[in-house]
């Protein structure tokens, strides 16, 4: 291309700068999303892998009752086993005073004491663990002689604001044991500190992980020379099925010792949750950017087609003067190239920054032992490639059209398209009698159907993206609202370790301020149907309970009838079960020795707004599991309380004094915890919503401006014929609003389909969201779209008002 063509390119870009900037903006959004998703995905997955490698994350775990330590040698001797670690893992109530945990005194009580569930895990004191080691982030590792030392998992320590040197008191058996905190650690097993796979989110206010020296664990839990869990790593390069063979061989060896089901690495709670997150990030890095870049491509195509149309005489002249087809093609392709470079580079910068923000958010929220954030040239290359690919592909068709336009044709005025009465007027004859100010816009829609369809699809893609983001906000709001307003109606939950008799509920109901007390039984379970298995929590509730309600399909609270297991739609789909089917319900920590499982029938349908928990009447669960698990009569894991607000804090203190009370959870605090955790999600969805609105605005602004500018001569002619500016504005507005309506007609079903797709994507084993779009959201989307249309046509209308009529009617439009 010659240099004066460059000058033309530069000045043409400048003269339509707002249109080109709008497209570059869409490209920027698409690339930014790709970049943010890709960078954070790579950062996180590499960080996890790095941490797993450095801290020697196990390939599988097998918990069991207890066995001699020497058993690890027999497992190590299995062919294919690389390393075996035997350890003690025991949960016991942990007593935290306000002195050790300032968080416990937040509500103003000076010497308030809280109790939570502590998971004590043994680690060798004189050497580092061969598998599942920890990284000390503050303080130090155990000293060889420091039997009373403890290492506390970082997120738990942060939540309770522990300091090095603080003392922790555990209730073990009938006595207490004290530990001095010497270090805060991060563990590859608790990057997300979940109690087990059935929990959707970490609960540092009620659950924490403490690492203690092996010898001390043996002493206090009376397991001298014994262990109750093995962690195993197989030789590198083994397939999953080879690993599984070894896992089950190890399980066979542990069979006489009450082995529970083994936990392969992919089912390990923290790792599983992290992989789900990674999946979501991977989707973010592909689905949304694809939508944006497709929209950008469509807009570039429309914009360049319009430019080529408007510059037909110039193209004719260039070709007549001896410029080759290739010169002209490259000239028009350069417009797309500039958009691609501008949008791509800014998108990469913005997206890379967002990627680092997301990474930073993850690394501060989660406890990732080792973070890998090298500069990712591949992310830059892919982002740039995606931008250029989309832009050049979209620009190629108009550029080729320009290049191959025969010069003689280019210099002729185009034959006006054949005028026809639109089909709508045939179907509805009264339309033909409408005033011209309405009839002309209506006919315009049918006159250039391709243009109308492009515009409508442009609007539709913006609408659909806005709808998807808005749907997530509605679905989360609905889930949280339903959960706290309709389901979880208690103010306080006291949890016991070990389980207690539900008679305690009657005792607690007598306490001052308590309006109602109901017992519940919460058990980690597996539901098995044929080859399919689903791990979740079973919540058994009183048949006529009021403090935790199960919702019927209409979303209304219902009483629990019959003996059936109540399962939400997501779990039904995963298992392929329907009401009336038989499923095997197994206590998740069942072993061959302690077999706690029963065949139960799937009960009636329920609405399950947030979690994947399953429900059954308390008496049925007690009947099924009490003797199998050797539980006390009519066992309960926790009692729900409805309490007068002014008694909440006093009652909480009092409840900690109850024997075996492991933790007290206030709904008020849970809500606050949830709000804190959701802040990132809301910010994230809010950003997506803004991106969607930005996209919608850019598309609508561009397509409408183009539509108007394309018809300069026609509009100027109408002005010269005597139409007032206001009439012309009204006609354009009617046409644009009609196009917007068409866009909405396409966009809302399209958005709904995208919502269905996205909601399936984000349903995990532990969290379920239903597709909820409030009617007000539809109203807002429709009103917002019309508003965007009205706003984005303003520049074009102003331009028409300033038209030099004599010039515009004489010259070719463009």
């Amino acid at each position, binding site marked *: 291309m010659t240099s*004066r063509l460059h000058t033309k390119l530069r*000045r043409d870009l400048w*003269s339509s700068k707002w249109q080109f900037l709008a497209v570059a903006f869409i490209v920027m959004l698409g690339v930014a999303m790709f970049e943010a998703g890709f960078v954070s995905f790579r950062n996180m997955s590499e960080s996890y892998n790095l941490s797993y490698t450095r801290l020697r994350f196990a390939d599988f775990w097998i918990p069991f009752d207890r066995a001699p330590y020497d058993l690890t040698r027999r497992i190590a001797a299995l062919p294919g086993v690389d390393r075996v670690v035997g350890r003690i893992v025991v949960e016991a109530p942990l007593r935290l005073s306000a002195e050790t945990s300032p968080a416990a005194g937040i509500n103003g009580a000076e010497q308030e004491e809280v109790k939570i569930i502590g998971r004590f895990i043994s680690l060798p004191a004189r050497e580092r663990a061969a598998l599942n080691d920890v990284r000390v982030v503050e303080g130090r590792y155990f000293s060889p002689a420091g039997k009373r030392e403890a290492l506390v998992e970082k997120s738990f320590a942060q939540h309770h604001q522990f300091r090095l040197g603080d003392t922790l008191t555990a209730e073990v058996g009938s006595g207490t044991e004290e530990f001095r905190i010497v270090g805060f650690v991060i563990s590859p097993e608790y990057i997300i500190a979940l109690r087990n796979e059935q929990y959707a989110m970490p609960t540092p206010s009620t659950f924490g992980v403490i690492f203690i020296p092996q010898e001390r664990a043996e002493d206090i839990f009376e397991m001298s020379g014994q262990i109750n869990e093995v962690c195993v790593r197989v030789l590198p390069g083994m397939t999953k099925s080879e690993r599984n063979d070894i896992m089950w061989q190890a399980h066979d060896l542990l069979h006489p010792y009450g082995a529970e089901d083994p936990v392969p690495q992919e089912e390990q709670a923290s790792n599983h949750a992290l992989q789900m997150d990674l999946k979501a990030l991977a989707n973010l890095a592909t689905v949304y950017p694809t939508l944006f870049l497709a929209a950008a491509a469509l807009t570039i195509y429309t914009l360049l087609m319009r430019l080529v149309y408007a510059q037909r*005489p110039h193209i004719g*002249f260039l070709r*007549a*003067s001896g*410029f080759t087809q290739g010169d002209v093609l490259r000239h028009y392709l350069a417009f797309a190239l500039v958009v691609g470079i501008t949008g791509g580079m800014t998108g990469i910068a913005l997206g890379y920054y967002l990627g680092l923000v997301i990474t930073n958010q993850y690394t501060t929220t989660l406890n990732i032992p080792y973070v890998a954030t090298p500069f990712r040239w591949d992310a830059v290359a892919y982002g740039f490639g995606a931008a250029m690919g989309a832009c050049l592909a979209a620009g190629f068709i108009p550029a080729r059209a320009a290049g191959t336009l025969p*010069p003689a044709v280019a210099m002729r005025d185009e034959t006006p398209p*054949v005028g026809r009465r639109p089909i709508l007027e045939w179907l509805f004859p009264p339309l033909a009698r409408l005033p011209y100010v309405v009839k002309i816009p209506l006919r315009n829609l049918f006159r250039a159907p391709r243009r109308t369809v492009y515009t409508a699809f442009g609007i539709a893609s913006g609408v659909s993206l806005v709808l998807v983001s808005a749907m997530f906000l509605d679905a989360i709001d609905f889930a949280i609202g339903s959960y706290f307003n309709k389901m979880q109606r208690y103010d306080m939950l006291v949890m016991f370790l070990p389980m207690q008799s539900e008679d305690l509920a009657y005792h607690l109901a007598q306490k001052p301020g308590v309006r109602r007390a109901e017992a519940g039984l919460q058990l980690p379970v597996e539901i098995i149907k044929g080859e399919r298995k689903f791990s979740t929590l079973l919540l058994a509730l009183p048949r006529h309970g009021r403090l935790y309600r199960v919702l019927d399909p209409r979303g209304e609270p219902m009483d629990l009838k019959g003996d059936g297991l109540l399962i939400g739609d997501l779990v039904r789909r995963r298992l392929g079960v329907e009401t009336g089917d038989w499923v095997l319900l197994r206590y998740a920590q069942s072993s061959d020795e302690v077999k706690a499982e029963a065949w139960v029938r799937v009960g009636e349908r329920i609405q399950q707004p947030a979690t994947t928990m399953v429900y059954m009447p308390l008496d049925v669960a007690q009947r099924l599991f009490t003797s199998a698990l050797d539980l006390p009569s009519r066992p309960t894991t926790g009692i729900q309380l409805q309490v007068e607000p002014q008694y909440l804090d006093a009652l909480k203190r009092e409840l900690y004094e109850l024997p075996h009370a492991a933790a007290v959870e206030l709904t008020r605090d849970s809500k606050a915890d949830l709000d804190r955790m959701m802040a990132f999600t809301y910010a994230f969805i809010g950003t997506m919503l803004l991106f969607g609105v930005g996209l919608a605005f850019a598309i609508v602004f561009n397509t409408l401006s183009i539509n108007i500018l394309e018809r300069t001569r026609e509009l100027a002619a109408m002005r010269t014929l005597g139409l007032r500016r206001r009439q012309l504005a009204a006609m354009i507005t009617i046409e644009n609003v009609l196009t917007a309506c068409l866009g909405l007609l396409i966009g809302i079903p399209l958005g709904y389909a995208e919502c269905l797709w996205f909601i399936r994507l984000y349903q995990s084993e532990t969290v379920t969201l239903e597709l909820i779009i409030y009617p007000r959201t539809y109203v807002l989307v429709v009103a917002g779209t019309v508003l965007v249309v009205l706003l984005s046509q303003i520049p074009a209308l102003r331009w028409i008002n300033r038209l030099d009529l004599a010039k515009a009617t004489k010259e070719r439009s463009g």
Partner: protein
Amino acid sequence: MSEDGKSLVHLDHVAKAYTMGEVVVHALRDVTLDIHAGEFVVLLGPSGSGKTTLLNIVGGLDTPTSGRVLVRGQDIATFNETQLTTYRRQMVGFIFQFFNLIPTLTAQENVELVAELVGKREQARRRLEQVGLGERAHHFPSELSGGEQQRVAIARALAKEPELILGDEPTGNLDYETSLRVLRALRDINRQQHKTMLIVTHNSALAQMADTIIRLRSGRVVEVKRNDNPLEPEELQW
């Protein structure tokens, strides 16, 4: 050389038909004529007579449906796209009724754009001075009058130093006074630089300054007339 050995351009039984919307238009029917080197030829005819089509075919912008178009003995009707582009680049300069200047380039840049094609960018300024627009070189088309714009277009056509200059209604969009100035520029170039001019117009007054007048009607040549005493542009009246 063409058939008679003297013609720069020889059209031999040229016909052209094309479709416009749903209509087939026979723009040229069996046209045979010669244009000699250094001649000032005016092509006259009413709207739709095929003038522009003929001009486009001679200029290599369009190809005939049948017949031969010999330019310096070579049949450009058989040229492929690349050969036609080279032909236009080296042989032809165009002047259009609506000037077709690039609005985002200045007068000088418009001329340079074309001059660059043949590596004569530095001559752009001189070409503008030749048409009396040296002072207006850095103005954009929108800052120039119609006559000035057309003179820029002439300078642009000259920039490649082509043998053949084709004008499609070059004064069609100009008033009388301005038209005279444009015609004077064309006449000077024809006489001083010996460029062959083929000017299409429906203004019969222009025929009086031509060496040869060709009349077209309904796609056929109805008259080819030699004018032994062409008038100067300033002598024309309409």
